[in-house]
């Protein structure tokens, strides 16, 4: 009995036949998004991202002390070595210390500083174990940052070209504008949460980007299909219909990815939880932007091109024929 119950669906996220008029809220959606993105850009400049060592250069060492860490002692020991320390802080548990040093002028100086910290620690806190050392020179970190940004920009360009190629330019432009807005919000989130912005975060942003694109393509794909199916329906209604028809899928997929990322954010450990939090944020942003940003942009851009509102029938439909494969 129980088994057979397992074989049938137990619930729906939204009832079939739901018809929410999302496009009525299009101005609201765009305004909220614009405000959030503007705020994020302001945050980006002030106070700005906390660059992780990948991009800022410098030295990070994670140390495990035998008992609860004595921070003042460690600070004093490092100060005695005349090391330009930027921070000695607790990292998770009470016996875990994170030591940060600023970027050194040369690679040799960086290397020498690592050795000095090791020696100073061994003297000040006998039995301390260095769990992790990460030292990056300025030249390398600048290149890493350049590559990270390059990867981001090129990914966006590829997405633009691909959607343009498979759909129409209105879809491509709508998707890329939305994605840029998504990214700015994610950056704002990073500033607010003070997560270190490093290569792993670039990967996280790119994943959010990929996921968000995925979501938009699914909605757009339905719009494309409906454009062919309902030749006379006004674009506004058509977009609403398409969003509603794909709503269960949109929410279902978001839900699974969200559920998959949640444990990672909560118990994944210090190094991976930042990534997972960005993912969680990105899922929410990416899902809502498909509905409230990407769709309205498509409506504005395509209102007179993809479909003449209420202007009927054959000639218009054939002239502005949507992508037919």
């Amino acid at each position, binding site marked *: 009995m129980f088994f057979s119950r*397992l*074989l*049938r*669906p*137990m619930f*729906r*996220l939204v009832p*079939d036949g739901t018809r929410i008029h999302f496009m009525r809220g299009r101005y609201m959606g765009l305004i909220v998004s614009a405000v959030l993105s503007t705020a994020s850009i302001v945050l980006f400049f002030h106070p700005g991202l906390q660059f992780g060592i990948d991009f800022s250069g410098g030295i990070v060492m*994670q140390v495990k002390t035998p008992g609860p860490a004595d921070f003042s002692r460690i600070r004093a020991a490092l100060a005695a070595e005349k090391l330009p320390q930027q921070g000695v802080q607790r990292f998770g548990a009470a016996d875990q210390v994170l030591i940060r040093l600023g970027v050194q002028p040369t*690679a*040799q100086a*960086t*290397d020498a500083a690592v*050795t000095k910290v090791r020696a100073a620690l061994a003297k000040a806190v006998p039995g301390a174990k*260095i*769990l*992790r050392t990460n*030292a*990056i*020179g300025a*030249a*390398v970190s600048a290149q890493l940052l350049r*590559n990270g940004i*390059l*990867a981001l920009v090129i*990914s966006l360009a*590829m*997405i633009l070209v*691909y959607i343009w190629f*498979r759909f129409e330019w209105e879809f491509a432009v709508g998707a890329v504008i939305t994605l840029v807005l998504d990214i700015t919000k994610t950056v704002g989130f990073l500033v607010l949460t003070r997560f270190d912005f490093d*290569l*792993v975060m*670039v*990967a996280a942003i*790119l*994943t959010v980007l*990929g*996921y968000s*694109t*995925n*979501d938009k*393509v*699914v909605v757009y*794909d*339905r719009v494309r*299909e409906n454009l062919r199916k309902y030749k006379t329906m006004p674009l506004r209604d058509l977009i609403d219909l398409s969003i509603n028809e794909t709503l269960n*899928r949109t929410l279902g*997929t978001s839900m*699974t*990815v969200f*559920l*998959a*990322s949640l444990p*990672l954010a909560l*118990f*994944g*450990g210090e*190094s*991976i939880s930042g990534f997972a939090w960005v*993912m969680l944020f990105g899922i929410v942003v990416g899902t809502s932007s498909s509905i409230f940003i990407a769709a309205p942009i498509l409506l504005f851009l395509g209102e007179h091109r993809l479909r003449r509102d209420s202007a009927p029938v054959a000639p218009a439909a054939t002239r502005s024929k949507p992508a037919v494969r």
Partner: protein
Amino acid sequence: MMYFSRLKTTLILGACLLGAILCIPNLTAAPVPWLPWRTVHLGLDLQGGSYLLMQVDMKAVVKERLNGLVDGVRQALRHASQASGAAPVFYRALVADPTQDRVVLRLRDPAQTQRTLGLLRPLVSVDPTTRVADLDITSQPDGTITLTLSKVALHDRAVAAVQQSIEIVRRRIDATGVVDPQITRQGDTHIVVQLPGIGDPDRIKQLLGETAHMTFQLVDEQATPGAQLPPGVELLPMQDDPQQKIPVYDRVDVDGGDLTNATAGTDSQSGQWVVNFTFNSVGARRFADVTRTHVGRRFAIVLDGKVLSAPVIREPILGGSGQISGSFTAASASDLALLLRAGALPAPLTVVEQNSIGPELGADSIRAGAIALGAGFLFVIAFMGMFYGLFGWFANLALVVNLVLMLAIMSLLQATLTLPGMAGILLTLGMAVDANILINERIREEQKNGRPPLAALEHGFQRAYRTIFDSNATTFLAHVMLFIFGSGPVRGFAVTITIGIATSLFTAWMLTRLLVSRWYIAVRPRLLPV
């Protein structure tokens, strides 16, 4: 759409089985002979270890080439003057100019310019395939002759230097007994060294920090301290006491490159630590020649510009072996022996990036990551089962197979699994689920629109396919870019996602469809339970 030929069914199930078999090496320790024994590597962040990014000092490479060129010019002009009996070529200010990659000399008599150019011509070598000369010789009316290294030649030299450095680095690291080190080049001037299991790479860094270029040069015993040194002699510091300097001839009589072996040992008389060395035939002959003609003089053993020791040659050494003494400890003697055996680096290496993770932290990461991944996986499975019932369980089965196939492909590629890579796996699972959700939603919709079950399945799969293809293609492209431009852990992440997209297309499109089709044939339901 819902029909599968016997061949196709076999192929699909065969692929899944093959995937499962290829995963075996990751689970057991002992190799099975009939299996390609390839496994997924754990990244340094998971198993602990060190990552060193080292830069080859290209300035040193150029400088050395220019110094060699200066020697070449000097010899060419001297030989020519002696051999032909013609008027000697006099010049002054023969200097290397590293800022412009060139050597400049000035002839006393500008009239000899043409003849000198002819004498220097043999120094130019032309690449047989590209026909590009490595050296460009120009002259001016006032008798100034400039030899400029070509860009191509410099680049080739840089590439060769990096290649050679990799080889030497490998030999040095292998000698320390680190298991499974990976040494690769990155870009034109960098070398990446990965040392699994080494949480504290200080010793390795020390070993790689020395070029270990050893030479044997005669000591100039006429030089008086404080007075000006004759040309071709320079003061070199002693290794133990840098304040004390010894005048040594520039000329290298025997080069450490001619060593065949070096071992640490103790001197039978003094009981001190020494390094014993053996030359190859060329080195042995030269060593014999020099020691025969210079008995009673001091012979300096120079390592990286510092004099290790400068013993007096008591008798000709003809056997091709000798001993270096100095104030060695057991450790420093065996390190020097190791460096000499491995050979000299063509240029100094500097560590520009270091990332080391203790094994303890790696184990913690694995545990936390595995627990979180497992929990995420269970959440997804439970959600799908509840959301779609039977079709959700089909999707779950496809999901497990997807995981197996990913692991199989990663094993075949011997890909590296990093912490971000683990997150990537989880996200791919999300995407694989997405494909199934798209399919199931579509089937449900088609059935709602009044199609009979078989037609609903047909249309559902067909229509969903296009959406799945488009949405995955965009993600795929984005991650290929990430792979090309990313580095380190990010690349591992991109690899996992790219593989995951491919396998999830296969499982959603082939496997789920096969399962549904078999089920339909067996049950012939009047209504699909989606």
